[in-house]
């Protein structure tokens, strides 16, 4: 099924059922074609995949491990819980898989500059990292709201040599950063590659990003077989744009007996209107935006709705067309986890297993831990830990109302105040 997904019926290149396509200003047409050709070419060249694997194992730590959560499995008394450790990647999340792959493609195409959107900042950091390593010029677009709340990532992007552009349009978040990046690209595409951060956007991005991220699923499948002797009953992954989910699901798409479960950001609850679910409970509807057709969180007239999630990385209106299709045909199930459930799950997992999932990944844990008790201890389930949570310290400490953390920040700020105070004294 995995391979077939990308064998398009005539005239339907880049389509997955009704989803996908390439809805872009005509000015980008040739660039997208060039990219498609370069990607098809690379994909047909076994040396390319080998180079990709070699890069990922010497620069990041692939294959990332598979960890058995012995304590939680025992506590819950249900399925054996396994975790794919994408958090151990260089830069701390699965994002780097895609980014390094696209970097190799940029080298093939001979371009000198890369641009990217970022929401939480993980993809921005990964792209800036790749650009530094491969010697490309780099510009990152980021909604101004995200720039404010994800300053640590902005700091690292800048240190890595990237220019970070704060986007003040729309909701000033991820979707607006995507629009801004598309605009830059429409201008710069002869020298510049757009490193799309997830399995969204116009064809060939959904296919290409899935291709690079499929490494997760390929590794995980053989690791499960090696460590447990059989396939997991279910595979859980959080779904923002959908790249980590697409990546791990890719390994199991052809195993009809493996249930694939995506978990979206339930925010304050699906009924609150304050969430970022699109597939769960079919809250989203078919639309076209940001270059592709999928299920968007939009109003009846096709205007995108504001989204909410405690995790910046899942706070997005669209979803990968491949996932929208797989959901339509019932191959994947999609649930939602609320902010409160996510924080509780995160704390639970930290204390019992010593691992710190990213807030995004913690969504997958919520549903997996909820459902594990319904399976037998002879069964196993697999969770994709897409990233590490230490990047989220500001959000988590805030959400938990950690007073010493606040005191720490106050004191830090206080260290610079004397000067200001002194100046004030003179001026007033």
């Amino acid at each position, binding site marked *: 099924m995995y391979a077939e997904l990308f064998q398009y019926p005539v005239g339907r290149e880049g389509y997955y059922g009704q989803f996908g396509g390439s809805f872009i200003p*005509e*000015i980008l047409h040739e660039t997208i074609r060039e990219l498609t050709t370069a990607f098809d070419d690379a994909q047909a060249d076994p040396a390319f995949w080998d180079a990709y694997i070699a890069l990922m194992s010497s620069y990041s730590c692939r294959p990332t491990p598979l960890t058995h959560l012995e304590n939680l499995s025992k506590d819950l008394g249900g399925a054996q819980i396994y975790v794919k450790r994408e958090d151990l990647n260089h830069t701390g999340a699965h994002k780097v898989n895609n980014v390094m792959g696209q970097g190799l493609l940029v080298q093939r195409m001979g371009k000198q500059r890369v641009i990217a959107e970022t929401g939480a900042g993980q993809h921005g950091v990964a792209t800036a990292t790749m650009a530094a390593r491969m010697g490309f010029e780099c510009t990152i677009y980021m909604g101004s709201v995200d720039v404010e709340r994800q300053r640590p990532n902005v700091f690292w992007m800048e240190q890595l040599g990237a220019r970070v552009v704060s986007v003040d349009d729309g909701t000033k978040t991820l979707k607006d950063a995507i629009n801004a990046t598309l605009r830059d690209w429409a201008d710069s595409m002869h020298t510049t590659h757009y490193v799309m951060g997830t399995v969204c956007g116009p064809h060939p991005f959904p296919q290409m990003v899935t291709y690079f991220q499929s490494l997760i699923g390929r590794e995980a499948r053989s690791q499960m077989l090696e460590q447990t002797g059989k396939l997991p009953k279910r595979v859980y992954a959080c779904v923002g744009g959908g790249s980590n989910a697409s990546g791990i699901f890719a390994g199991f798409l052809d195993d009809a007996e493996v249930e694939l479960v995506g978990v979206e950001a339930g925010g304050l609850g699906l009924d609150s209107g304050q969430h970022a679910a699109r597939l769960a409970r079919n809250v989203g509807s078919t639309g076209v935006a940001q270059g592709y057709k999928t299920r968007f969180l939009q109003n009846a007239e096709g205007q995108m709705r504001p989204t909410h999630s405690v995790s910046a990385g899942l706070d997005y209106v669209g979803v990968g067309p491949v996932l929208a299709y797989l959901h339509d045909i019932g191959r994947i199930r999609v649930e939602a986890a609320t902010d409160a459930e996510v924080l509780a799950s995160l704390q639970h997992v930290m204390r019992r297993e010593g691992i710190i999932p990213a807030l995004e990944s913690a969504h997958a844990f919520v549903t997996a831990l909820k459902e594990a008790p319904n399976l037998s201890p002879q069964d196993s389930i697999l969770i994709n830990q897409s990233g590490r949570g230490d990047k989220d310290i500001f959000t988590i400490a805030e959400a938990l109302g950690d007073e010493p953390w606040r005191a720490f920040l106050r004191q830090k700020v206080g260290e610079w105040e004397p000067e200001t105070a002194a100046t004030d004294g003179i001026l007033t």
Partner: protein
Amino acid sequence: MGARDSGDRRDTDMTPIEDYIRQRLQRKRLLLMTHAIVGYPSFEANMTMLEAMQHADVDLVELQLPFSEPIADGPVFVQANQYALEAGVAWDNYFAFMQRATMVFDFKILMMGYYNSILQMGHERFCACLAEHGGDGFIVADLPPEEADDLHQYAAAYQQAPIVMMTPVNSESRLRRIADKASGFVYCVARRGVTGRHTQVDEGLEAFIARCRSATSLPLALGFGLRTHQDLQQVKGLVDIGIIGTALLTAWEQGGVKRYGTLLQELTSAVT
């Protein structure tokens, strides 16, 4: 070849708008198409803008339906889209405004916008609605020709011109493919990038227009980055229609109706 193929079109294929353009071209060497974002800064202001256009003898007007994700627009229009949406612009008041305008003014009016609005409305309902409210066609910034067939069929049925875009980076074969889907006129994008930035009229531009001409026999409109009457002066003789967008909105923002009217008068003086 392409040109000859397209040249084979019979007169009966002509949309009302092409007809209108060809007639106007009899007395003007360059027509003028201008643009407004409906609801920005207000419906009343839009009306004042359109009155100024009428007064300057503008030939065609794009009325942009605001969208939350305007990927082909530059900063000025992006902000305007957003403002209009926040102010509550929706299908009903958009089309009501269009209707009012088409009843009052002489220029032809085209809907401009993004595909999602049309998709949500439905292709047929959209075309019917346009026709019902006096529109003559539409320009969709993010609809590639591959995706256009169904919509264009309804467009034909409702006598709406589906304006397609040609760009300097398109190959010959791509230009022919676009030409195949074209009717009314063709929107030639003067340069890479989004709306708003200035465009230099140079040899590259002339070569591009020549390639468009050999791909289609339809009238050619040139847009993206034309700002001044000098710009129009330079493209007169090269294309059939000059398109002014951001420059006008900027004039409004900087100097209100006065500056807006003045710019329009200057532009008109260039085309006549």
